[in-house]
């Protein structure tokens, strides 16, 4: 009887500890001294590999500064974009910070920040493909990135069901840069891609055979954390606001985009 009582007591205590368990996500990151940022390292100018194979980009500059203000070191961990949620939930990375669109589904699965940059999902096409509007993609071969917002839009949004049915074939690429090369070589006719990426990359490609056709959806970039890591997310958000106020974000944005296009809420 005594033993049973002890068992019940222990159980109650452990349950109590569970219920009272605080969100120590911020403390955990500060204790291990690193913030592990997960990214698809083929997403310029947000996060990608430069000529020396170093991971660089707008997001990387922002995150480096955020990490240093939180007193930790930033570690960049490339992941397969279609497996990013698994990598996050298994604790291999602490956040996904790589020009990730805020979608209802992702808000359901992760603790997302507010938007820190605006983007559009665009249709780009080869200039000789005869595609001048999204309806012209009927019967054509269209590329997207696997696991991207563009893929979700074309595959699941009601508004695009008819368009999806008319497209000849949708090719899902591992990353957008491979898709851009394929578009340039004429292996696909059109590509659904983030405006931010396409503008930056095409400016460097010295190739005017790829043209913007039209925008499909407005889009916002946010940072994703594990569903329960609210304390960590809030700390990163607060740091970003602080950086917006003291002009750090404007300076970083100037470097990558030539102007301040950040949407971090200052008020």
């Amino acid at each position: 009887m005594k033993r049973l009582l002890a068992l019940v007591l222990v159980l109650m205590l452990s349950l109590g500890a569970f219920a009272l368990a605080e969100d120590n996500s911020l403390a955990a990151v500060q204790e291990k001294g690193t913030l592990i940022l997960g990214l698809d390292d083929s997403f310029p100018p947000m996060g990608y590999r430069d000529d020396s194979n170093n991971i660089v980009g707008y997001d990387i500059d922002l995150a480096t500064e955020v990490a240093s203000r939180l007193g930790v070191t930033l570690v960049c961990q490339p992941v397969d974009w279609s497996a990013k949620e698994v990598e996050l939930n298994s604790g291999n990375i602490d956040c996904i910070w790589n020009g990730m669109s805020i979608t209802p589904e992702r808000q359901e699965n992760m603790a997302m920040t507010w938007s820190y940059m605006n983007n559009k999902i665009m249709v780009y096409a080869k200039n000789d493909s005869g595609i001048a509007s999204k309806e012209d993609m009927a019967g054509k071969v269209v590329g997207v990135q696997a696991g991207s917002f563009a893929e979700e839009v074309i595959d699941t949004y009601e508004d695009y069901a008819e368009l999806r049915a008319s497209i000849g074939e949708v090719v899902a690429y591992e990353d957008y840069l491979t898709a851009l090369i394929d578009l340039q070589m004429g292996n696909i006719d059109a590509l659904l891609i983030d405006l931010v990426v396409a503008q930056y990359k095409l400016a460097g490609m010295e190739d005017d055979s790829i043209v913007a056709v039209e925008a499909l959806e407005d889009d916002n970039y946010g940072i994703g954390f594990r569903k329960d890591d609210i304390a960590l997310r809030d700390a990163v958000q607060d740091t970003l606001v602080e950086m917006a106020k003291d002009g750090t974000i404007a300076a970083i944005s100037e470097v990558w985009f030539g102007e301040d296009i950040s949407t971090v809420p200052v008020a």
Partner: protein
Amino acid sequence: MSIKYFNDPARLWGLTKIMLGGVQVTLGIFVLTLILSIPLGMLVALGRMSKRKALSTPVSFYIYIMRGTPLMLQVLFFWFFLSQSLPFKPSRFAVVVFSFALNYAAYFAEIFRGGIQAVPVGQREAGQVLGYTRVQTFFRIIVPQVVRNVLPAVTNEIITLVKDTALGSIIAVVELMSIAKKQVSNSTSIEPYVVAILLYLLLNGIAERLCKTAERKMDYLRR
């Protein structure tokens, strides 16, 4: 498609340098996999040939799983399984080596089994007649002949292994293949692939040469 490296020696050297960094990782996977999988393969071969059903049946099942599923799937499975179930975080590199070692051990085991069974029973009997114990017979008479028998097939596996290291890129191990892919993306030029082709050929050229030398060394047994 424009030429961006082959007309610019400085840029080409820069590219080659970072890709050589990838070769180090590729070699690391290669060497560690061999060191682990050859002894393990030997044990698995012996287990597979055991007369005890309780041993040979599970070992056969292990070989069936390892040879019957794609190595890519095994790497992905082990990465997500181990990174969630172990009390510590394994490195991506370690998981690749782990999966490769298990997979290659299964192939080596079957090669070794064939090599052992190809040695005529008379050899074993002769050893025993000469007063060798079973263990002595195995190591002094059987094993040297097995090594000679299996070398060509092992060479084949070694060459395949050099190329299979490219699968490390699917769990983001920064080896030669993944650097080639990222640099093709970064430069929108396929020249990094050409450099990667040359580097893989170089690696396999060396591997082949070493295996050939070993085969020639073992030839004394043939008389």
